């Protein structure tokens, strides 16, 4: 049934014909029932379940296709059949080329063996030959960034390190067809960026990619064609945007709970304030106490700029629940969605919560938010995030103390690229940014004067290539070149970063004393969406704007995970049952 050698007509990479997969629940029953008794009475409990039915699918070589659908729609079964793990009950599978899959990172990893031994074992399980492994070994190690750990046994590795190792091996294998499941959302931002770059590279190399994701952005962005699966059948095959649109409609039609739509809908950047101060959920588990702590482990609701913040939520479980996950979302008082991580996006799996009490904590290494009033939601979700056991929406408040007249949202890290050695130790400080902001706010979209001219304004990646789309976690440079028509006297350059819905994210001010100014945001942590930059030059002596360009440049950010909000904040989860 699997044919990997025959080349049919040269263009098809995957062909599925009337394929169906049935799971017989008979066996499952026999295993659990009381053995002999049921065997003697010959009770045959037959329940069949068609996970996939009448699947016809053709994928051309070099295409990137996406598969979407709700949980249980059959996406994983389909990928497993393509990977050769499941045998279809009926129908035909034709796959031309070597298949690699990212559904199975680190399959067969052995705790007792060292990282290095596991690389060799896992590679040969994936079907690499000895020569190939020897050739690729260095690349694998380099990509994984785990050099130095490779002689320790795998049991000393963290979950993240294991995934990184698994990913690095899978990605270095030579393949024609790559199957990608949700897992891409695991790992820290910079590693995700690397993975994403690698996928772009595969796209360029004309490899065939099949991607399953709940993250509709990724499907829209990466794929050339998408399939919508519903109850085991392909209900639509078309351009990704169309399919995603149809899928969202389908979700609405089915009257799924609000919380589910919130996940996939347009509510990524704004909170629905109508729900604030409300509690919803089925209450198998209840959040009973939420506290926030500062860097000194003191309980408080007021924090300093950039401080470590820990949220601790105590809960009571009244009825055992399986595979729950925890979520916390931070909003600004006006409803701007700052950041909403949850344990499932972060790749943690919590097996179950037994009856009793427990707590979870979320620790933000440094809250990159500007002073102001904020709120957060705390929730315990079911495994598919279809409903909440307990969800306290916008219930808790906290404040970051300090002045923030111009209402910037983020406290991003940035540096100015130095032009010459003499500027190395000179720190340019902003003087009156607030006043400036008001000035900008009241002015028109464009101001130009005879004093200074903007000759070029470019967004660059680290290697200096102009770009308009960036991945979260990568470096991001803004290079502006000016022409001074008069001798510059106390000119100040302002750059403002905005969300496309005009939320002011971050602004910087610098004394302009050269013709070029390059601002660098290292590891920019902005989440998926469209953003723009505005630029202005202010003359201190003239007390006026000499140059202003609203939306001087528009760009897109892509974050591989599903986390919602505006900014990725480094964090870690902990939980325990008491």
């Amino acid at each position, binding site marked *: 049934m699997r044919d990997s050698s025959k080349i049919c007509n040269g263009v098809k990479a995957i062909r599925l014909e009337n394929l169906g997969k049935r*799971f*017989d629940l008979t*066996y499952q029953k026999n*295993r659990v029932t009381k053995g002999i008794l049921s065997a003697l009475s010959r009770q045959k409990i037959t329940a069949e379940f068609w996970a996939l039915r009448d699947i016809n699918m053709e994928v051309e070589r070099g295409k990137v296709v996406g598969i979407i659908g709700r949980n249980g729609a059959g996406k994983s079964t389909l990928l*497993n059949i393509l*990977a*050769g*793990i*499941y*045998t279809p009950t009926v129908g035909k599978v034709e796959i031309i080329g070597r*298949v690699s899959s990212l*559904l*199975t990172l680190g*399959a*067969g990893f*052995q705790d*007792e*063996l060292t990282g290095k*031994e596991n690389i*060799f*074992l896992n590679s*040969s*399980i*994936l*079907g690499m*030959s*000895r020569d190939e492994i020897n050739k690729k070994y260095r690349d694998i190690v380099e990509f994984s960034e785990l050099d130095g750990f490779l002689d320790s046994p795998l049991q000393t590795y963290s979950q993240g390190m294991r995934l990184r190792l698994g990913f690095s091996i899978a990605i270095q294998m030579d393949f024609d067809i790559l199957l990608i499941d949700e897992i891409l959302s695991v790992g820290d931002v910079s590693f995700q960026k690397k993975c994403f770059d690698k996928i772009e590279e595969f796209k360029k190399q004309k490899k065939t990619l099949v991607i399953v994701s709940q993250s509709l952005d990724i499907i829209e962005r990466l794929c050339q064609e998408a399939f919508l699966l519903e109850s085991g059948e392909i209900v639509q095959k078309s351009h990704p945007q169309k399919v995603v649109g149809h899928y969202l409609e389908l979700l609405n039609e089915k009257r799924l709970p609000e919380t589910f739509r919130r996940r996939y809908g347009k509510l990524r950047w704004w909170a629905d304030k109508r729900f604030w101060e409300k509690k919803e959920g089925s209450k198998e588990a209840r959040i009973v106490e939420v506290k926030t702590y500062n860097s000194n482990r003191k309980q408080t609701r007021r924090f300093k700029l950039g401080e470590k913040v820990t949220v601790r939520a105590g809960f009571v479980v009244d009825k055992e629940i399986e595979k729950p996950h925890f979520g916390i979302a931070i909003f600004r008082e006006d409803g701007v969605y700052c950041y909403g991580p949850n344990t499932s996006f972060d790749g943690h799996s919590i097996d179950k919560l037994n009856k009793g009490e427990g707590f979870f904590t979320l620790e933000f290494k440094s809250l990159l938010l500007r002073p102001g009033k904020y709120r957060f939601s705390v929730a315990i979700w079911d495994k598919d995030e279809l409903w909440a056991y307990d969800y306290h929406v916008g219930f808790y408040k906290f404040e970051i103390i300090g002045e923030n007249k111009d209402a910037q949202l983020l406290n991003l890290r940035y540096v100015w690229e130095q032009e010459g050695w003499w500027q190395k130790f000179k720190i340019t400080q902003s003087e009156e940014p607030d006043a400036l902001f008001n000035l900008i706010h009241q002015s028109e979209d464009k101001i130009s004067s005879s004093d200074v001219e903007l000759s070029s304004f470019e967004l660059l990646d680290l290697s200096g290539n102009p770009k308009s789309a960036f991945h979260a976690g990568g470096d991001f440079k803004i290079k502006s070149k000016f022409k001074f028509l008069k001798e510059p006297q106390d000119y100040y350059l302002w750059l403002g970063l905005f969300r496309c819905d005009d939320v002011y994210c971050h602004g910087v001010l610098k004394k302009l004393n050269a013709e070029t100014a390059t601002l660098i945001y290292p590891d920019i942590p902005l989440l998926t969406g469209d953003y723009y930059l505005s630029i202005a030059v202010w003359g201190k002596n003239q007390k006026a704007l000499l140059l202003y360009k609203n939306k001087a440049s528009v760009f897109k950010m892509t974050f591989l995970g599903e986390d919602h909000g505006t900014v990725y904040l480094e964090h870690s989860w902990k939980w325990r049952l008491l």
Partner: protein
Amino acid sequence: MLHIMNHLRALIQYRHLLWDLAIKDIKVRYRSPTLGFLWAIIVPLIMVFIFKFIFSVILRAQVENYPFFIYLMTAIFPWTYFSSSVSSATECIFSNRDLIKKTYFPRQIIPISVVLANLINFIPALIVMFLVLALFKMQFTILIFLLPGILLLQTIFTIGLALIVSSLQVVLRDVRYIVELLLMAWLYFSPGFYSLTMVANFSEAFLKLYILNPFVGLFSLYRIALLKGYANTLPPKVNIFALSVWVVIVCCVTFLFGLLVFKRYESRFSDLV
């Protein structure tokens, strides 16, 4: 028949994986224990000592011409290789659930790698056996060169059984217990700690049935290779050539049958484990 050729070809294609999995098995087994690889020798040796104590000291059993310890060892060592292979193969599909559920490669690699691991495990025991033989001042003959062939025969037979029990265990969870029971009975129905002459003296009719057990042939072959003049001690009713041919047939047939059985159930593994 064509299918079988395909399966065999897959084995050759994946020989590295086969080797890697077997080595993994060994490493995982011996990395944590303090005595490590020594256990590969200690276990069969202790077994021989126990049998020696019970049969020779308490029951006062005797065999012609050879020290009882040597006589026991030449059968018990190969037997531990066989029985540990088969019993660990029974659960191997389950214990490698991760691989079955997540990756694709010819599944027969798994039980075969289990047997291979046990074969590697058997090598130090084999060396110890030679040392003990030398200690007892046994003389080796040219027949010693039969040993690799005999080992190969036994391995083929073991693989066949491993394929059968590993796949059946997935469909029927009772197989594990049946296998344990059969392994125990099997040892007692093989001439490990008594001689074929004793069986012949007991009943000639029973002997005809008895020698159908391939381990009668295998044990005899091991002793012919290792013990000088052993062929002459066999009862006259037993034709060693006919016995050898029978063993070869049984081993090969079991191997092929095992492949067929395994392939029949293979497609259901990922649903059932």
